Every structure is written in C-alpha cells, then in structure tokens.
C-alpha cells in the first residue's frame, strides 16, 4: 500500500489543498474563538472575560433565556416535525405533497420573513390578528414580542428541519418490520410507538441535538421579536456586544466559547451513542426496504389533514401573504384598505435607494463565491474520504463537518477574531463573508455529495480503471456525470442559503456600505421601522431566487 501512495502525488496534493482549505475555513475561526475569549485587557491571556461576563453583564439571565428559547423551540419543533413525518411517511394522510412542499419552503425561507410577518399579525397593539380578535371578543390576547412568541415563530422554521430529517429516515426504513408487528396483532398506534419510532431513534436524537444547536445560533427571530421587548438570548446579546461602544469582541468570544463547549459536548455524546450502540440494532436503515402499506387514519383523517393544512398556513402561506401585502402597502399598521396599495415601496427600493444594484451585486457575488468554494471543497473531501485509503481522510472529513456543532453567530465571532488583524486584509470584504458562509454550509453539501458518492457503485469506476482511464478521466467521464443531479442540487441549496444569510454579512460587514447584502439592508430598514421597504426588498430577493432557480430546476428535470 505504501508504494501505491507514493505513486500518487496528485492525490496527495489534492489532500493537502483540501486540508488547507478546511483548516482556513473551519478550524482557524474556531481556534481563534477560544484564543479571543482568553485575551486580557493588559494583553496577556486569562479567564477575566468569563468573570466579567457573569459579574457585569447579568449573563445568567441571558443563559437562562437562551436555554428556555432553544429547548422550547426544539420541543415544539420535534412535536410538530415528528408528527408530520409519521403522518406523511406512514399514513393515508391526504395532501402529502403540500406538507413536503411547505417543509422545504419553510426550511429555505429567510427566517426574518416569518418573524416580520408575525409582527404585522400579532404585535400587541396593532397586529391584524389582535385587531380582529378585539373586534370579535373585545381583547387583544396575542403578544409576539415575548418568549412564547419567539419560540413559536422559530419553530415554524425549525420544525421543517426535523420533518425533513425524520421523514427521510422513515422513507429508508424497511416496512417489513412494521407489517410483521401489525400481523402479530399490534394496533396502528402501537406499531408507531413500539416499532417505527424506536427504529429511527438515531435520527430523532440527531434531530433534537442539531435543533438545539441551530436554535442557539438563530439571530433574526430573537432580534426582530425579542429585542424590542428587551428579551435577550445568546445571538442577540452577541450582537449587542459587537455593536456597543467600544465593541466587546473578547466578551463576545467568551460567550461563544461557552455555547460551543455545550454543543461539542452534545455532539460528542451523539457520536458516542452511535458508536457504542449495537450497529445491528439500527442496521435496518439501508434504503433498500419497501414502504409498508399505509395505515388508515379512519375518523382521525380530517383532523390530521386540518393539522397539516394549519401548519402550512401558519408557516408559509400566511407569512408570505402578509409580506406581499405589506410590500404593496404604504400605510402600515393602518386600516387595511385597498386604496393604500401601490408599488411605491418597490419603486423606492429600485430607484430611490441608490445602492440597490451594488447590494444585489454583493448578494449574488457572495452566494456565488460561497457555492463555488463549498462545491469544490465538499466534492474533494467526500471523494478523498470515500474513494481513497489515504491516512487522515476521516480526520479531514470530521474537520469539515465541525461547523455543524458551532452555533452560527458564535462562529462569526471566531471569524472576526481570526481575520480582523490579518495582513491579508480580507476583513471587511466580500471574500471573507463568502468564506464564513461557506464554512457554515460545508457540512450539508458534504453530506449530500458523500451520500451521492456512496450510491455510485464502485465497480463503475473500477471498470473505467481497467479500461485504462486515469483518476482524472474517471472523475470527469464517470463520476461527475453520474453525480450531476447531486452536485447541482448541492449547488442550488448552498447558493440559496447564501442569498438569504443575514448573520454572517451583518456581523462581518462592520456597518460598512461596501459589503451590504439584501438581507442586511432588509434588516436595517426594519430596524429603522421602514417596514414597507423591508417587505418590498424581501419580495425582490424571493423574485431573484425564483429567476435563478426555476431554470436550474427545469434543466435538471429535463436532463433526467
């Protein structure tokens, strides 16, 4: 084997480049997050920032809020997401396409869109729902600017993640196990409780842990809903640290480290639980199985269908309708009358707001660079991990996955620390924003491409070797064409999330107009209470997304 490696300098260069890429993108910011948190005012290293965090910033309150927020969101998301996943994968629920579409849409929707929509709907005094209820029963019961409000709105996004994870696991589960239980006399509910859910336990645990970590990193929802009511959680407190005067980068890093440590702990537990479990117990998830016959819901069918429709309405249909309405409305929070409708907001953001083309250009440039970096790196890492025997390949892919365990906003703090004084001068530029976003979306792309590679039978490449094709020819002529749908899908997903990323450009832009993106401008407009313009820009961003992705989608469809 040793000689085989020596004969492959090309492979080793690819490995070195990928390792360097992962180190710069992922490891450097995480390391700097730790270093930054230990910087003392005098210049040395110490634990002073951690002490300060507790003594001066009433960190305990933020800590408690963060846990309530993240746990509440996780529990609600699991309840909704798992219920819908079981209903879709295992019962005769009508309208499954709607449920799947809603989940996908909710997952890729900008989180700020839902939060903004619910301000219009359920703010204490002027929300449309409150006004309607006031007219009906004489009270205004809803207050979206509260912890329950934040948990509710965040769950409308995060349930989709749980649903997509668990539904995929259920789809890969051989139905014979459940049919055997039914034939043995178990009722439908017993089968789901005693057989189906226990078999997908690993994905349930993973969904719960990753939901918690994602919830810590959420910024837009707690910023739009919580900050006006002075409810601060991890991400919004970080924002305050960065935007205070002077900015408190060290304290921000210390807080980031504390959440990262808990996340690493949870991730470690997940990893251990997967290693120690008898693999055979869950080996049923191989994707070869046949779906079992669907359980009839009987009289519960209309209730389940109503629940599914309600989720669709609350998570996607209502928020999008409200944002569209607001974008066309120049008299916000007034009476909803048709004579106020105009394209005034659109005309302002497209012609009155001078920087708009530059902002659109920035947004596209960042998303494009991000998607390019991620695609090349994820393919290289996945290929090295699955198609070579190089030592260190598992370490490389582990390092590439690492950002999954770092709450989004904490990671950005690490990026600031890593690059703010770097002589390369990337700080405050588009490239660094793209790099930080790329680090965040690398795990998802790596997973998709890795799974895709795993499904390409090795003998297809071996046949090409025997025919005399070298490694590059094999990748170009065999692997790349076979993986084209997977690669295009990964590109689309990363590009899409890049277009709507708010945290990274907001935290890394440093307020400079050079690096404004659509998401940041939308957030800034919102902060200035220019809600109509904010809504119009959101619709514009969605329009750009559609213009780019519809042709891509059709292209993939046609090619298959």
């Amino acid at each position, binding site marked *: 084997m040793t000689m085989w490696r020596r004969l492959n300098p090309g492979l080793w260069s690819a490995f070195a480049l990928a390792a360097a890429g992962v180190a710069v993108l992922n490891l450097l910011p995480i390391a700097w997050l730790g270093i930054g948190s230990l910087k003392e005012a005098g210049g040395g290293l110490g634990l002073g920032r951690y002490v300060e965090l507790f003594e001066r910033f009433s960190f305990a309150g933020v800590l408690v809020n963060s846990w309530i927020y993240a746990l509440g969101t996780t529990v609600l998301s699991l309840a909704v997401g798992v219920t819908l996943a079981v209903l879709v994968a295992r019962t005769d629920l009508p309208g499954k396409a709607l449920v799947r579409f809603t989940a996908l849409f909710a997952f890729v929707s900008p989180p700020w869109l839902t939060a903004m929509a619910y301000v219009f709907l359920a703010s204490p005094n002027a929300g449309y729902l409150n006004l309607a209820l006031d007219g009906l029963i004489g009270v205004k019961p809803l207050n979206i600017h509260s912890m329950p409000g934040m948990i509710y709105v965040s769950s409308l996004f995060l349930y989709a993640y749980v649903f997509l994870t668990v539904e995929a696991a259920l789809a890969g589960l051989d139905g014979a196990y459940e049919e055997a239980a039914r034939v043995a006399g178990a009722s439908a509910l017993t089968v789901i409780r005693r057989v189906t859910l226990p078999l997908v336990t690993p994905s349930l645990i993973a969904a719960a842990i990753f939901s918690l970590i994602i919830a810590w990193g959420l910024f837009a929802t707690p910023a739009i809903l919580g900050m006006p009511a002075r409810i601060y959680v991890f991400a919004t407190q970080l924002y305050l640290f960065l935007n205070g005067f002077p900015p408190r980068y060290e304290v921000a890093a210390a807080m980031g480290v504390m959440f990262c440590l808990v996340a690493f702990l949870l991730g470690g537990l997940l990893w251990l639980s997967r290693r120690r479990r008898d693999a055979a117990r869950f080996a049923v998830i191989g994707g070869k199985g046949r779906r079992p016959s669907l359980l009839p819901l009987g009289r519960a069918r209309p209730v389940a269908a109503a629940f599914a429709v309600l989720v669709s309405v609350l998570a996607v249909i209502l928020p999008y309708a409200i944002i569209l309405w607001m974008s066309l409305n120049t008299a916000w929070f007034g009476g909803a009358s048709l004579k106020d409708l105009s394209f005034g907001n659109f005309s302002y953001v497209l012609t009155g707001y001078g920087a708009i083309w530059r902002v659109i250009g920035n947004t596209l440039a960042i998303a494009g660079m991000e998607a390019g970096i991620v695609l090349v790196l994820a393919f290289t890492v996945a290929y090295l991990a699955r198609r070579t025997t190089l030592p260190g390949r598992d370490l490389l892919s582990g390092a590439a996955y690492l950002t999954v365990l770092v709450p989004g906003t904490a990671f950005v703090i690490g990026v600031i620390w890593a690059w703010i004084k770097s002589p390369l001068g990337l700080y405050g530029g588009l490239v660094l924003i793209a790099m930080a976003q790329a680090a965040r979306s690398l795990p998802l792309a790596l997973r998709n491409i890795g799974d895709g590679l795993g499904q390409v039978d090795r*003998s297809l490449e*071996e*046949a*090409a070797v*025997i025919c*005399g094709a070298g490694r590059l020819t094999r990748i170009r002529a*065999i692997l790349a064409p076979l993986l084209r749908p997977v690669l295009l899908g990964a590109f689309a997903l990363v590009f899409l999330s890049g277009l709507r990323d708010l945290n990274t450009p907001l935290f890394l832009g440093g307020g400079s107009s050079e690096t404004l993106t659509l998401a940041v401008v939308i957030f800034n407009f919102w902060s200035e209470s220019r809600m109509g313009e904010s809504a119009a820009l959101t619709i514009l961003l969605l329009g750009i997304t559609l213009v780019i992705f519809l042709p891509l989608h059709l292209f993939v469809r046609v090619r298959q």
Partner: protein
Amino acid sequence: MSAVTVSHLVKAFGAVRAVDDVSFTLASGAVLGLLGPSGCGKTTLLRCIAGLETPDDGTIGIGPTNVFADRGRVLVPPERRDLGMMFQSYAIWPHMTVAANVAFGLKVRGWPGPKAATRVDEALDLVRLGGYGGRYPGELSGGQMQRVVLARCLAYRPALLLLDEPLANLDAHLREEMRAELRRIQRETGTTMIAVTHDQAEALALSDLVLVMEGGRVRQAADPRALHARPATPDIARFLGAVNRLDGRVRADGRVELAGGGDVAVSHTAAAGARVALYLRPGGLRLAAAGDPVNGPLARVDSVEFLGDALRYRVSVGDRAVIVDQPAAGPEYGPGTTARLAVDGVAASCFPA
C-alpha cells in the same frame, strides 16, 4: 509464451490470508478457471491481478512485464496493465450509450473517432449486438448487458480478460447460452482469460485449466477432464458434486467391503486391508432390482422425489444416507423397498480414510 505468471502471491486482510502462497502460469490464448466456494480467495486473487487490490508479497507478471513484484516496489497501476474485466454487477455506465460504453477504452487510448467507431461496430457485431450502439443500458435485458460488457472489454483487445462470476446474474437458460457464446468468442479472438466462478459446470465448460481454491490456497490445478475424473482431495470431490460418502476396507481381491454391508468394485490404488472412503456422484448411481447382478450394495429406499426428467431417491446403505439421481424412465422403487445400488466403479473417487 506464458501470458500470466503468478508466483507465491500473498494478500492478507488483517489476520486473514485471503490469498495464501498462490502460484500458476497461464499460456497465451488459454482460459483459466478459478473455482471454489465463496470466501476461498478467488475474487481477491482476480482483483490482485487486475490491480484493484495490492498484494502483500509475491509477483504477478502479465506478458513479459512484472506488474507487481518486490513487495510493491514494482507496482503498475490497473489502468496501465492493458486488461479487460467483466464485473459481476456488469458496471455498465448508465449515463453513456452502448456505443460510448464500448468506445471508452479506445478513447482513453487516444484512438481517433472514425477508427474507434469502426472498432466499436466490430466489437458489437462480435457479441451479436450490431445496431444497438445508440441505446442506453437501461433499455437492455440482462443478457444484452452481459454482451455489452464483453464488447467493452474486447474493443481495445486487451492482453488479458478477467471475468468475475461472469454468468452469475443470468437465469439458467441464458447462462448456458452465454457460456457457449463466451467460449466461441474466446476461440475467435484468442483472448487469454481468467474467470472466477463458484459453479463447477461453468468452470469445466469454459476453462483449459482449473485452479480449485480453498482457504486462500490452491488445492488442485488440473485440466477440466482430469479434475473431474480425479479430484485430489475429498473436499474437492464433494465440491465437484460427489456428495455421497461410503466407508469401507479394501479386501484381498481388491474389492471394497462396505461398512454398511455388501461390497463394490472401484478403481483405486490402496493396499489390501486399508480403510477407504468412497465419494460418489448422485448422477453416477442408479437403483436396480435387488436380485440384479450389478456392481454395488443393497440399499433401503427412504423417499423418492419427482424432479421431472429425473427421480431423486434418498436411500440408506447401512447407516449412511445416499442420494441417487436417475432418469425417470424405468421402474420406480417406493419408500421402504430394498433395491441394489449400482455404482459406476470408474466414476467413484476413493480416498484413504
């Protein structure tokens, strides 16, 4: 001239020696069959020759060059060994047409388009798939895919063709047709071949030389007829289908006195008084009336199964169970009756016990 020379080849996976000190030479234009039960190391040996696995020790020569020697200090990567290989899973590239699949090896060798196209047509004609070039693999049947793989291997006329369980994925009828087809194409092209199989009939029909492998080692190397007539060990005899065993002792007159009573004349080289074990093929046995003067002991019929063209009897000779397959024509012996077990003395294998 020898096309393939393998000597003292070793390949271990952890503590398991999948290939353990294997040596053989194969003449140019000949067909070698690697025969053995699953897990015997035959596929690992084939993949070592292909270069898809790297051996630990020994040498592999293809034509005049060593492709592996000196513990890997000499190591030619698979793409430069000038091979063809038929994979058990076919491994036809689903995103390319039949013609593009067949042309692939020519393209990587830098053949110009028109010349390659002519060669592709020749290869497709050879496997009787002329006119199928524009189709995609998804539109083909199993047997046609098999032919595409063969055409893909033969198009660039490799020095050696490797076949990994080439017929395993075909149903019984197609398998026989493809087996004859493979032999015809091999004769027409004179290609040197190494074929891995666990099916003895396939190995015997295809090969000029058969290596029987077990536990990573070569247990017997012989041409098909010699192998069939004289398996080297009881295990090989059993593997080749002689599943019935009768124990006995050689009498002074050379006949074997059976432990369950009765005696039988077989060809053997054992001395008088030696204990021996006889291995008998079900197809080499038949039942006759108890009084018939045939070579063999008395047997009690336990059950009879109707298999269509043949009857399968399960009988007892003493306390030994014996399976007999005989043509369905003629008298049938019901369960509980006693019959005489007629043994073809030349076809029986006799080993010291």
